[in-house]
């Protein structure tokens, strides 16, 4: 029987990463993710792992790249301005086809912004987060339990597809405490890392981890091959949760912390006799387009709830091919929408439909 423990989201995720076999953590202090690094600095020595505080966010992500190239399950965590600095490494990880887990406990932006929770890095996360043609898988947990669970998923997906998995959370999920069932799922069957740099031992040809292609034809072909993998991921790995959508006439959508507020508002709308439902993307890349397109055939309109000026709303509109109106309801800068605000948006839209 798995243990149930009251934990902060940041610590639950860190512990799950250790349970998932992560033995290399490279961090740099930034609020509101400091609990992750603090936990790892305590925990890693107990499991003969490596905790290293890097001299910068850029160094940290490049240490992850080195450890990953060497075959390790490696991880770094940061918050918005720090993740922006990591974008160089994220691009190189993609170019080298290396697995990695990168956590973003989002805070308000742009610039130094605020240290309060935010979802304003959606574009940065889902549009690659660096130069060149690439994607990261982006997981969007909405509870401390999911913070815990998604660490396992993240490492498995990273190794399966040899790419970065970004855990896109925010200050709410990182800082709040909830009970967590410490279930350790069975590790997926994963391909051997025969590409890793380990030293040839004089027994094999040398392995080279590289993202440079002097011939444009070769780079184009490599990128096309990588996008074929992305197409498989879009088909196989898109995840979402639907709530009261069977008879819904208005679809509310939100991910992460704002989805908890949205769900409360949906319940309040139902109490008022408005048939509202919720689609919560659990992966925001790949975006669960199919679920939205299917819903667009049944509901009258959508309300997209975000802690930003409106970023995921573009993916919603693309997913439903603009077949139905999509209203935006959000707060930004570190502010959190309240259920009454979302309810008002639902009722306004409900009246329109």
């Amino acid at each position: 029987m798995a243990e149930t423990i009251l934990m902060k989201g940041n610590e639950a995720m860190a512990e799950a990463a250790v349970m998932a076999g992560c033995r290399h953590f490279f961090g740099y202090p930034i609020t509101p993710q400091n609990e992750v690094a603090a936990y790892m600095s305590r925990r890693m020595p107990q499991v003969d792992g490596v905790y290293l505080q890097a001299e910068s966010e850029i160094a940290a992500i490049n240490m992850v790249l080195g450890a990953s190239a060497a075959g390790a399950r490696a991880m770094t965590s940061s918050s918005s301005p720090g993740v922006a600095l990591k974008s160089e490494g994220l691009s190189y990880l993609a170019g080298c086809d290396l697995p990695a887990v990168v956590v973003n406990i989002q805070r308000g932006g742009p610039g130094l912004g605020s240290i309060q929770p935010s979802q304003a890095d959606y574009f940065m996360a889902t549009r690659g987060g660096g130069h060149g043609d690439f994607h990261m898988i982006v997981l969007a947990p909405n509870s401390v339990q999911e913070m815990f669970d998604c660490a396992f998923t993240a490492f498995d997906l990273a190794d399966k597809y040899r790419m970065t998995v970004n855990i896109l959370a925010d200050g709410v999920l990182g800082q709040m405490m909830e009970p967590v069932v410490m279930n350790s799922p069975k590790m997926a069957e994963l391909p051997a890392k025969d590409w890793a740099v380990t030293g040839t031992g004089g027994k094999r040809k040398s392995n080279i981890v590289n993202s440079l292609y002097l011939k444009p034809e070769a780079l184009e072909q490599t990128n096309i091959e990588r996008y074929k993998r992305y197409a498989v991921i879009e088909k196989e790995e898109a995840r979402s949760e639907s709530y009261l959508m069977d008879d819904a006439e208005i679809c509310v959508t939100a991910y992460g912390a704002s989805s908890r507020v949205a769900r409360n508002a949906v319940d309040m709308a139902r109490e008022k006799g408005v048939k509202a439902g919720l689609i919560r993307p659990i992966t925001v890349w790949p975006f669960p387009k199919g679920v939205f397109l299917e819903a667009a055939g049944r509901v009258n309109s959508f309300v997209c709830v975000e802690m930003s000026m409106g970023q995921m709303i573009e993916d919603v509109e693309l997913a439903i091919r603009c077949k139905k109106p999509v209203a935006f309801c959000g707060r930004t800068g570190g502010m959190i929408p309240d259920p009454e605000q979302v309810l008002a948006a639902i009722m306004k839209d409900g009246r329109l439909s």
Partner: protein
Amino acid sequence: MKTIFERTPALSDAVTHYCPGCTHGIVHRLVAEALDELDLTGRTIGVAPVGCAVMAYNYFECDMVQAAHGRAPAVATGVKRTHPGSIVFTYQGDGDLAAIGTAETVHAAARGENITVIFINNAIYGMTGGQMAPTTMPAQVTQTSPYGRDVSKAGYPLRVSEMLATVDGARYIERVAVNSAANVKKAKAAIKKAFANQAAGNGFTLVEVLSTCPTNWGLDPVKALDWLKDNMMPYYPLGVYKDGAAPEAGGEA
């Protein structure tokens, strides 16, 4: 027929892309010979930079990672912390190591990271076509210092070995040159000593190699060797800058 000279096994048989007269080829061979003579090649992992040596991953017969500009010491740190029993080296130029990657270099040294850095100082950015480097000499003409490096505006060249010698975590720092047969021999001894230190687990080692760039200096190869001797060596004196363990924590100076 008697073989009197052959390629050392750690060096691949690829044709390098280096310009005629460039000294990268010499330094590559010294690194490879040092690894082979110390019997370390099979457990060596190299990290290639951005710059002229970017394709070093094709020239060494060991596992290689190609790093982003300046990040080789950070990448090497990740590799070494994963395989502590391996021999990890970076091979970096002056722009990569002493400009965009200064932080990574200094902090790898400060941590006493048990890696070896081969630092090619040729006073210019080579691959991008000859721009001013952090190590470009005062008054030296480059593509981006067309009137000569004016130290009142562009600052002074950075002496990396001297700077790193002040860092407690650095174990062995030496500056060598490859402008003459005698100096090439000394350079090889230094590189070998650096790898031997790493194999013994002694910590951060760096060998700075004063090198030439005939193409971007606008000199023929022989004149370039003279220019190195006459202009670089007075500013960047050869020698051992650090050779020994860090002082004990809290110990007497």
